[in-house]
């Protein structure tokens, strides 16, 4: 019995290994075309289709962001291809498990596939790693959602569709000061996270400049993200009337719940990572009543573009899209606009496209789901953040 079993397993192993080998020889073939394309030879991608690639966490704890971006981009690509214009896209997303090493692997796999323009990576740290690669390989990249400053720093061909972290921190502090939302502010942030601590740093600097008083700043980490009673207790005893939560919505939902349970009801102010809290499974949305957040995208907006996007997303993927999906959707359309403006054709090599796109993006003005008249300087986008408040389980502009 044991013998039979081990033979069976060994056989299974062999076949799977062979399957793996098959895959690798495929990518090998793709690599040759990529190489010849990169050499600037006249080999063209099939049928004038631009090969668009991106990496993101499609599995693991951060999978929700990667899949949202992938789905959002897919909708845009499908729309553009259905229209049948001159510019067509072929989209491929590879899994990076929210890890810098895996992201570089995924990026290389995309290069083997023949990627001409890149959507970077979805999350910040992996994107910093792939940005260094795209910079070295001269492949143009526009990331939907990697928001840390280091992503675009010192790279002329790396662009962001989302706000950079510091902008969010500064904008939040300005908004709170201008609207006089609170005088004593408590902050809870995740100090092992680039996004959260990046926003906090700039928020603190701007709050000091604007004369806002931060009475309590407490932290948590990945390992301690399931109990916030200490942080909330400190904020409460410091008499904070506004709690700033620069973090993603899962820990924020827990904070709202625990604050409610201990009878502490300050104003809550979040950033774009808070978007998604209303669709979180098992979360009582009445707890989020009155929460304010700065976000570039609002799935409940009444304009035609947003409505059709949300509808398509819902019918295709069964969820309400979050800002990651919207950012990725915008990325594809921004690419379309830039490629049209620069007069690019799909038989250009990645390097040629890169030079043309750098030129195009420096003068591009783009209207998308996540903002109007967006422009780019040094890779960072400038668009107006929208202040939103949650009322009756829906976003309402402030």
């Amino acid at each position, binding site marked *: 019995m044991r*013998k039979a079993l*081990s033979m069976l397993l060994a056989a299974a192993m062999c076949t799977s290994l062979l399957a793996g080998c098959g*895959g690798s020889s495929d990518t*090998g073939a793709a690599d040759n075309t990529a190489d010849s394309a990169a050499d600037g030879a006249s080999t063209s991608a099939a049928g004038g289709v631009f090969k668009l690639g991106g990496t993101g966490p499609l599995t693991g704890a951060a999978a929700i962001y990667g899949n949202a971006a992938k789905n959002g981009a897919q909708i845009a690509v499908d729309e553009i291809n259905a229209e049948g214009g001159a510019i067509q896209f072929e989209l491929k997303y590879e899994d990076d498990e929210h890890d*810098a090493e895996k992201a570089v692997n995924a990026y290389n*796999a995309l290069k083997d596939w023949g990627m001409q323009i890149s959507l970077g990576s979805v999350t910040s740290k992996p994107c910093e790693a792939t940005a260094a690669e795209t910079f070295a390989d001269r492949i143009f990249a526009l990331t939907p959602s990697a928001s840390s400053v280091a992503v675009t720093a010192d790279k002329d061909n790396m662009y962001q569709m989302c706000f950079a972290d510091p902008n969010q921190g500064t904008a939040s502090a300005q908004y709170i000061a201008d609207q006089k939302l609170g005088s004593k502010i408590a902050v809870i942030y995740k100090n092992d996270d680039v996004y959260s601590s990046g926003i906090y740093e700039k928020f603190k600097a701007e709050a000091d400049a604007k004369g806002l008083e931060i009475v309590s700043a407490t932290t948590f980490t990945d390992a301690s993200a399931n109990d916030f009673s200490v942080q909330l207790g400190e904020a409460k005893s410091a008499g904070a009337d506004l709690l700033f939560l620069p973090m993603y919505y899962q820990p924020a939902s827990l904070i709202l719940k625990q604050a409610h349970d201990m009878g502490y009801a300050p104003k809550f102010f979040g950033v774009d990572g808070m978007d998604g809290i209303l669709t979180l499974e098992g979360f009582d949305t009445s707890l989020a009543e009155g929460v304010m957040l700065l976000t570039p995208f609002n799935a409940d907006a009444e304009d035609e573009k947003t409505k059709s996007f949300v509808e398509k997303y819902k019918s295709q993927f069964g969820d309400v899209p979050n800002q990651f999906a919207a950012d990725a959707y915008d990325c594809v359309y921004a690419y379309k606009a830039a490629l049209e403006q620069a007069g690019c054709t799909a038989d250009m090599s990645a390097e040629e496209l890169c030079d043309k796109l750098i030129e195009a993006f420096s003068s591009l003005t783009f209207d998308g789901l996540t903002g109007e008249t967006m422009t780019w300087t040094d890779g960072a986008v400038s668009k107006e953040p929208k202040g939103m408040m949650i009322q009756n389980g829906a976003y309402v502009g402030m």
Partner: protein
Amino acid sequence: MKKTKNLLTAGRRDYLISFGIVILAFAVVQTMILTGNITSSLKGQLVPICAYIVMAVSLNLTVGILGELSLGHAGFMSVGAFAGIVVTTSLADVIPFAPLRLALAMIVGGLLAAVAGVIIGVPVLRLKGDYLAIVTLAFGEIIKNIVNVLYIGRDAKGLHVSLLEPKFELAEGGKMIINGPMGVSGVAKLSTFTSGFVLILITLFLVLNLIHSRTGRAIMSVRDNSIAAESVGISVTRYKLLAFVISAAFAGMAGTLYAMNFSTVTAAKFDFNTSILVLVFVVLGGLGNIWGSIIAATLLTVLPELLRAVRDYRMLIYAILLIAMMLFNNSKLKVRLMEKRAAKRDSKLNKEAD
């Protein structure tokens, strides 16, 4: 007489196979690179593979040869990684020659990891039992949390270090090297496949020589029966510490190699999962089997990338393969294969002796 000859050939066989695999693989990959037949995917993984091989070989010294369980090997890797980054960034103007700078960084990284090894080893290795596993596990987490609150910056005045928050102001032209939880960004990549290859050779040379030397036999005697070893005058703690510290030093060097291959590194990368990953390499390759570690580290690093073709089932298949390999390692089939091989070798030896 036959026994000693057997022992000698066992040592020589280890050398032959280990160096053979590594040099052959290097030659093949280099030809592939020169003739342009290599996929970007494989090319991108070369340095991480080298780093993981060194990690696996060094951990094998602790787990396989010394017989102590270590669950925090990634902690030493982390020490080496961040120390290496500080060194290479600080010396960027002084030593423009990249390979020399990398070598220096590796030496510093290795030394600091060795110091960490001594700090852990001195109290813990005096004890019998699984204490080392518990303490190294904690050590890995401690290092992760320390680096998360560590800020190191450099400007014209020199290095500035602070904990918890950046308490220093950098002068004009200064640069944050380690920026707390944001880790390191914008590192100049120095690691090359050749540097990884050289590090593997050095590691193999030192580790294999150690194992087949008098010291190595003393270490193995501690593993097999510490009371007997003590009775013949072997200082158990000393040999345990020696093996553990050497193992830590190589992990530090591997960490430097790994970190200098990416433009960004965070402390969170070197967590418990990475320690376990390296332990899996060692266990699958066979405890005490150095070339087994090399093959296991390579295969298990490349495998997830090869499986990209099957998309969503990638991780599932990877897990099944791991289980299958574990089962095979413990199966009667393998035992029988090994026995057959040993019998063949014995008869060959006998023939030669005749």
